[in-house]
C-alpha cells in the first residue's frame, strides 16, 4: 500500500511543473494537441517544409486570436524523412504515445496513402491538405478529407490551351508513383476529350537521375506538348536534360516542382516559358490570401511561399472551423462538421462529398514569364496572356 502511495507521490511531483504551466492565466484548459509528421528531410523536404510553416502560422494566428473553443493549439510535429513507412510509425506513435487530440495530414500522396489507415483505425478525422491522388479518398475510408484539387486535373489548363492553339499531339512522362501516375491518367482522358492525340507515355522509377533514354524517345515522338508529372528534383533534372538533348515541344509543363520559386532559382532563364500547375498563388483573390501571404513573409523572412504553405494553412483553417462548429474534440462530431462544411479559406473553395473527396477547389495554370509565375488559366483568374509557342532552346 505504502508503495502505491509513494508512486502516486512520484507521479504528482513529476507532473507538477506541467500542471502549474498549464494553469497559466487566460487558458481554461490545456492546449489542443494536433499531431502530424512531415517530410522535413529527404526528397520531399522543400515543399513539406513550406507545409510546416503553414501549420505553424495557422497555430500562431489562431492562438493570438484567442484559440478555439477557449483552448490553444499546439502542434506535435515529426520528420518522416519522406518515407511512407516511417510516417506510419510516427502517426501510430502520435495517437498511442503522444495522445494527440487530432491529426493533420503529412506531405504528398504516397505518404498520406500510407498513414490513412492509421487515423482510420483510431477513428480520428484527418484533414489531408497536401494529398491530391483521388484513389486515397475513394477506398471507403470515412475519416480522411481532401483540400486540394485532385491529381487528375493538374494539367487540365495545358490541355485546354493546347486545344485552343490548335496543337495536335501530346507526350507524357511520369515518376512511377501514386500521384504522378494519377495526373497522367487524368491528362490522358482530358486530352482524349479535347481531341488531342497522345503519342508517347512512359514512366520512370523513383530515384532516376539520367533522363537521356526517356527524353530521346520523347524527341523522336516529336510531340507538340510535353507534360512531365513528377516531383521537384526530377522537374529540374528533366528540364536541364531537355535543353541538353534539344527537345523542343511547343508547350512544356512540369508538375509538381515547377511551381516552387526554387525551380526558377536553380534553372534561371532555362525555366522561362515552362508551364506549371498550381493549387494556389498569392495573387489569387481568395478571402484572406493577401493577408496570409504578408503575415507569412513577416513570420518566415526569406522562406519559400508556395501552395504547400497555403495548403497547410488552409487545411488547418478547415480543421479549426470544424472544431469551432462541433464545439468539442469528438471525432464523430468533427467528421460530421467537415462533411457539411461549405466555405472559402485562404486556399480557395472547400466542399467535399460523402467520401471526403474535394469538389469545389480550383486548379490554376501558370507560365514562368520574366522570373514570375504568370497565371494564364482559367480565364476568369488569368492575369495575362500565354507566351506561345515556346521557342526552341537554341533560339532563346
Amino acid at each position, binding site marked *: 500500500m505504502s508503495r502505491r502511495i509513494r508512486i502516486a507521490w512520484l507521479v504528482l511531483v513529476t507532473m507538477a511543473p506541467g500542471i502549474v504551466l498549464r494553469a497559466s492565466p487566460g487558458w481554461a484548459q490545456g492546449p489542443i494537441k494536433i499531431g502530424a509528421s512531415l517530410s*522535413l*528531410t*529527404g*526528397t520531399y*523536404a*522543400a515543399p513539406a517544409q513550406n507545409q510546416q510553416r503553414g501549420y505553424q502560422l495557422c497555430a500562431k494566428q489562431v492562438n493570438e486570436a484567442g484559440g478555439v473553443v477557449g483552448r490553444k493549439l499546439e502542434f506535435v510535429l515529426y520528420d518522416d524523412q519522406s518515407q511512407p513507412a516511417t510516417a506510419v510509425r510516427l502517426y501510430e506513435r502520435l495517437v498511442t504515445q503522444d495522445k494527440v487530440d487530432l491529426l493533420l495530414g503529412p506531405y504528398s500522396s504516397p505518404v498520406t496513402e500510407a498513414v490513412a489507415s492509421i487515423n482510420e483505425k483510431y477513428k480520428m478525422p484527418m484533414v489531408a491538405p497536401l494529398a491530391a491522388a483521388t484513389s486515397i479518398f475513394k477506398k471507403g475510408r470515412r475519416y480522411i478529407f481532401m483540400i486540394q484539387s485532385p491529381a487528375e486535373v493538374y494539367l487540365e489548363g495545358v490541355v485546354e490551351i493546347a486545344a485552343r492553339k490548335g496543337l495536335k499531339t501530346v507526350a507524357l512522362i511520369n515518376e*512511377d508513383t501514386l500521384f504522378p501516375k494519377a495526373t497522367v491518367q487524368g491528362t490522358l482522358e482530358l486530352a482524349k476529350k479535347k481531341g488531342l492525340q*497522345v*503519342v*508517347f*507515355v*512512359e*514512366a*520512370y*522509377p523513383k*530515384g*532516376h*537521375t*539520367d533522363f*537521356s*533514354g*526517356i527524353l*530521346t*524517345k520523347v*524527341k*523522336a*515522338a516529336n510531340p507538340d506538348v510535353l507534360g512531365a508529372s513528377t516531383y*521537384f*528534383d526530377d522537374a*529540374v*533534372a528533366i528540364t*536541364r*536534360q531537355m*535543353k*541538353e*538533348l*534539344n527537345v523542343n515541344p511547343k508547350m512544356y509543363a512540369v508538375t509538381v516542382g515547377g511551381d516552387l520559386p*526554387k525551380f526558377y532559382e*536553380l*534553372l*534561371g532563364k*532555362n525555366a522561362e516559358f515552362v508551364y506549371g500547375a498550381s493549387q494556389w498563388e498569392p495573387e489569387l483573390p481568395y478571402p484572406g490570401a493577401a493577408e496570409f501571404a504578408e503575415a507569412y513573409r513577416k513570420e518566415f523572412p526569406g522562406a519559400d511561399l508556395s501552395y504547400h504553405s497555403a495548403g497547410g494553412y488552409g487545411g488547418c483553417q478547415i480543421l479549426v472551423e470544424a472544431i469551432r462548429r462541433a464545439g468539442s474534440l469528438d471525432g464523430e462530431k468533427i467528421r460530421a462538421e467537415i462533411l457539411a462544411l461549405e466555405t472559402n479559406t485562404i486556399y480557395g473553395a472547400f466542399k467535399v462529398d460523402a467520401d471526403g473527396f474535394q469538389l469545389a477547389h480550383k486548379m490554376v495554370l501558370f507560365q514562368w514569364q520574366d522570373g514570375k509565375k504568370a497565371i494564364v488559366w482559367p480565364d476568369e483568374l488569368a492575369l495575362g496572356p500565354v507566351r506561345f509557342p515556346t521557342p526552341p*532552346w537554341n533560339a532563346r
Partner: protein
Amino acid sequence: MSVVITPEMVAQVVVSGLLAGALYAMVALGLALIYGVMRVINVAHGTLLTVGAYTTFWWFNLLGLNPYLSLLFSMPLAFGLGVGLQRLMVRRVVRAPELSSLLLTFGISIALVNVLQLFFSSNLRSVEFLTGAFVVGRVAFSKSRVVACAFAVAITALAYWFLQRTRFGKAIRATSQNPEVAMVCGVNVERVHLYTFGLASALAAAGGSLVAVMIAIQPEMGQVYTFKSFLVIVLGGAGNYPGALLGGMFLGLVEQLSSLFLTTQLNEAVAYVLLVLVLLLRPTGLLGGRAT
C-alpha cells in the same frame, strides 16, 4: 504508343551511356580498391561522393570557383577524411568477416549523411554551370557530362598508372594479392591501407564534384552511387581493377539501352537482374578471375 527506334536514337543513348559509364567506373574503382586491398565492403562510399559534391557547391556558391577547379579541394579533403576514417575505425575491421565491415561502414554512412543534413539542411542545391549540349549531327553531347567524362577518364587513367607504375601502387597491388607475403617483402601494410582508403575516398569525391554540375545535391544523393558501384564491381569482378572500368561502361550502356528498347521503368530491374545472373553464372565477374 511507343516510338520507332532509329539509329540516331541508338547513337544518342550509347553516347549518354558511355558518358555516364566513365563516371561510374571512376567511382567504382575506389570501391574495388578498398575491397581488393582490405576485404572491406564500404557502404559509405557514396556518402563520400556526397561530400565531394557539397565541397564543389560551397566553393562555387561562396567564391564562384569553377566547379572543375574545385576538384583540387574536394579530392584532398576526401583523401584526408578517408585516411581519418581508416585510422580511427575501418582499421579495426580489415580482413575481418565481411559483416563487420558492412555494419561499420553502414554506420559511418548514416552518421555522415546526418552530419551533412545537420549542417547543410536537406534543401536541394545545384551548381548552375555549363548547361546545354554540343550537337554533332543529330546526336547531342551534354556539355557537363562530356566534361565530367573527360575528367573521369583522366583521373581514372592517372589512378591506374599510379597502381601499375609507381612503387607505392605496386605495394597496393601486392597487398591486395597477398598481405602476408607483401609484409614479408617489406611493404608497410598499415600504411598501404591508410592511403588506399584515402585514394578511394578521393575518387568518390571526384565523382561527387563532377555530378554536382548535373544533378541536385542533397545529403542522400550518394546512396544511388553506392549501389551502382557495387553493381559495377560485381560485373567487373571484385578486386579486379580493369574489370571495374569495363563494368562501369557496361552498366552505363545497359541502363541507357534498356531505357530505350524496353521502358525506363525497367532499367534498374535490368541492371539488377544482370547482377544476379553474373553472380550465378560468372561469380568472378565478366572478365573472370582476379587479374590484379
